[in-house]
């Protein structure tokens, strides 16, 4: 009977994000931009000079899918961690929302939806940067951008669940940054093929949505290791991560908002 929906929560989140638009653009694109300039161009010139690129393509082409997915993942992650902490712990906004016609699952969906908007924005904007650097071809947009968005959403739902479990924020973001985001960035075959790493640390990449998205992106954009079964395995991993994350997030939101 009432028209309450997750869209109203997403609308609120976007309104809030708009107030932070400069920080979002600066951090969302600034970091990856610096990596692109420093490692992409610096290390890239070395790699290209020594072996004629990596994986049979120029270094930047190899690097681009990973940086794109990484930017999307980080952008999305921001929008499910800070707002969820504000919702449950800092300002307790979710408890106010839970007193309206909204259900806990709708609140979770709304937060996720807004993060999807940021993921899409980040992927599009960063693709333009990559294109400006000559790292990607125009045609690659069709495959690289969806891969990055897919990975961003999968990770965002997972983090939505994790953030909803946090009771107080003592060092939560430091922990996530140090033990999740940074290792994921470093051990996902971002700068070199994952196979170059010893097996003792290779598993980090297997669990990382970034690696799966990167592999998909590389396969689609320049045909790296183009084996169809493997490609679908990567897609399946991301789909499962996203699906499970959403289910668990719904359960956790409901538990906390009806206790």
């Amino acid at each position: 009977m009432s028209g309450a929906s997750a869209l109203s929560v997403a609308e609120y989140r976007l309104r809030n994000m708009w107030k932070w638009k400069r920080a979002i653009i600066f951090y969302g694109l600034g970091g990856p931009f610096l990596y692109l300039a420093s490692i992409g161009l610096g290390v890239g010139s070395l790699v290209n000079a020594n072996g004629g690129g990596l994986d049979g393509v120029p270094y930047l082409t190899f690097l681009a899918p990973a940086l794109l997915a990484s930017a999307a993942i980080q952008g999305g992650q921001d929008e499910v961690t800070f707002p969820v902490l504000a919702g449950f712990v800092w300002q307790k906004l979710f408890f106010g929302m839970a007193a309206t016609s909204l259900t806990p699952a709708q609140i979770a969906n709304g937060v996720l939806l807004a993060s999807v908007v940021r993921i899409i924005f980040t992927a599009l904007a960063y693709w333009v940067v990559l294109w400006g650097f000559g790292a990607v071809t125009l045609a690659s947009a069709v495959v690289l951008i969806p891969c990055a968005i897919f990975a961003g959403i999968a990770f965002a739902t997972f983090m939505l669940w994790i953030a909803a479990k946090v009771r107080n924020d003592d060092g939560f973001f430091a922990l996530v940054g140090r033990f999740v985001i940074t290792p994921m960035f470093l051990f996902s075959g971002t700068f070199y093929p994952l196979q170059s790493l010893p097996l003792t640390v290779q598993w980090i990449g297997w669990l990382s949505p970034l690696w799966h998205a990167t592999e998909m992106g590389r396969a689609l954009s320049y045909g790296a290791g183009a084996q169809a079964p493997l490609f679908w395995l990567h897609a399946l991993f991301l789909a499962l991560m996203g699906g499970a994350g959403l289910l668990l997030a719904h359960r956790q939101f409901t538990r906390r908002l009806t206790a």
Partner: protein
Amino acid sequence: MIRASGLTKRYGEFTAVAGIDFAVARGESFGLLGPNGAGKSTTMRMISATTLRSGGDLRILDRDPDTHGPEVRAHLGVVPQEGNLDTELTCAENLYVYGRYFGLSRRFLRPKVDELLAFAQLEDKRDVKVDALSGGMKRRLTIARGLVNEPEILLLDEPTTGLDPQARHILWDRLFRLKEQGVTLVVTTHYMDEAEQLCDRLIVMDRGRIMAEGSPQTLISEYSSREVLELRYGTGRNAEVAAQLEGIGQRMEALPDRLLLYVDDGEAALEAVVGRGFHPIASLVRRSSLEDVFLRLTGRSLVDE
């Protein structure tokens, strides 16, 4: 409008609300009175369909809040104890955004926001961030927010806790207006004067149970005397003097800092006390209040913050 029977809420081993019965009629202003931890806020959260009950039955507007949460909440206005306003948004934005959560249209909300800002006497704060408001203003904004969906029942949890006297009176005035407009109010408070000011009828709660029910006046006449004589003899002597004042008044409560004599005529009682040779350091004759009712019912005073 609200019907509870055997309403219970347990958190693990702890029973916050231990099977209470009450009913609230349309247009009534109903109070839940009791000290911190009496189970008032938990009861309130069950009524507001934001926490599931552990036992008993509850009907809000003829619906079960556990199974029809969104439907029930659509007709409620909730003013929580912890103001969960969004401090990064302006006053107007807070009201607008909250209205959207009820699925209300932009066209409905645009004039509604202005109307509510006027009601909360915050027109000149329209585009000011909530961060910059005083405690009283925030509370008024929270009440205005609770009215955005034109609720049939407004639930207020400790509406004036932490406010200075002036801000309290402004707030009470606003609530009176709502009452006049026929909005059903449910108020929790541990302030006696607030309960006397706002409530037509109330339940006195302690440790999850209902100790008494009635209008403030009935409760006072039923559980207390017309007047109260307060006597102070200094912390050391109060108990000693208490033993010597037997027979004056209907009942006496000896508190560590003062003696309370429940009497019909305070001045006459004071004369009798002095006649026995016990001159107090300080004395006060006052009307009986709900504070006295609570003391009588539980043997404890409502500890103020």
